[in-house]
């Protein structure tokens, strides 16, 4: 079954991050799609973890008298690091590889295996990138390891086409 645009966008960002991490010799970093995977006690994943989520989407009208519109989803990239230094390095690295845009790919899923079909365009960041420490106002000693060194990068992307 072929993915629709929202899932293609999420998967494209995840693949771009994974490929770049591998090319630039980052080891031990896991990229996931849902918060549930980060905290799954049955399938424990150690930090550093990068969680990519597509949140709300705004639709920009294409033209008067028409229903065509441009999709602009909010992307939330959460980093669960092993230390403050690891957090700072990872977030700077991710921003450096994302800020100029990345390929939009189309995918399908068969028997829980995701396969890339083809690249079909490019995704560009159309807003300011927000880059902030997730400070929970709780002493780090009272936090789980995964909660101690968290960072959030968020931005809006667009394929630059009307749908």
């Amino acid at each position: 079954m072929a993915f629709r645009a929202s899932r293609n966008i999420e998967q494209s960002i995840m693949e771009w991050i994974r490929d770049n991490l591998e090319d630039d010799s980052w080891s031990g970093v896991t990229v996931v799609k849902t918060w549930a995977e980060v905290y799954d006690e049955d399938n424990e994943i150690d930090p550093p973890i990068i969680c990519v989520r597509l949140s709300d989407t705004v639709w920009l009208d294409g033209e008067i008298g028409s229903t065509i519109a441009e999709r602009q989803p909010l992307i939330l990239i959460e980093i669960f690091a092993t230390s403050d230094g690891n957090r700072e390095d990872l977030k700077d690295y991710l921003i450096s590889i994302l800020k100029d845009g990345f390929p939009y790919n189309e995918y399908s899923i068969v028997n829980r295996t995701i396969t890339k079909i083809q690249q079909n365009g490019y995704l560009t960041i159309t807003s300011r990138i927000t880059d902030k420490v997730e400070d929970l106002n709780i002493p780090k000693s009272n936090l789980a390891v995964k909660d101690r060194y968290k960072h959030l990068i968020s931005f809006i992307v667009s394929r630059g086409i009307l749908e």
Partner: protein
Amino acid sequence: MFRVEIIQKGKPFGKWIAEIQQIAIESKQEVKDIAVQATQKMKEMASDRTREKRDHSIDTNPKASKESIEQNIDLTIVEDTAEKLDIGIGNISKLNQNAPHWAAQNFGSWHIVGKQVGGEFTNPSNGVFYGNKSGNSMTPRKPIPPKNYVERTMLFITNELRLLIQNLSRSK
């Protein structure tokens, strides 16, 4: 030697400046309206989802205590002059003091899993709830999922400001 001649075409510069100033005045009220809507949206996103289903407004909800996030999200006009309009939504100092759980609700957190948490709710006969004479408690089994109401409100504001600028450009 070069001679440069500047020829003015179209509107005089002074008239152009006056038009921009007029647009700024007209758009100020619209920006304030966007800020009011954004504040309400942030409160709705931050509030308990079960309360959203009730027919109460967030501000008059009798269950929304003084420590609730939505009761501590304020709209503040920081500066309003001819040259500048500065608006704040949600004072972090106030939230940290009165509703410090605002960050855990926004970003999500695992810190209460397996810990006894007190609260004001009825005590069903089974599940994670248990009660005693001094009050009811629960032991959460799952982490607090992220609501990201701050980031989602920013998306709303960005889009509304873009529409405002687009409409102002078209009207002139």
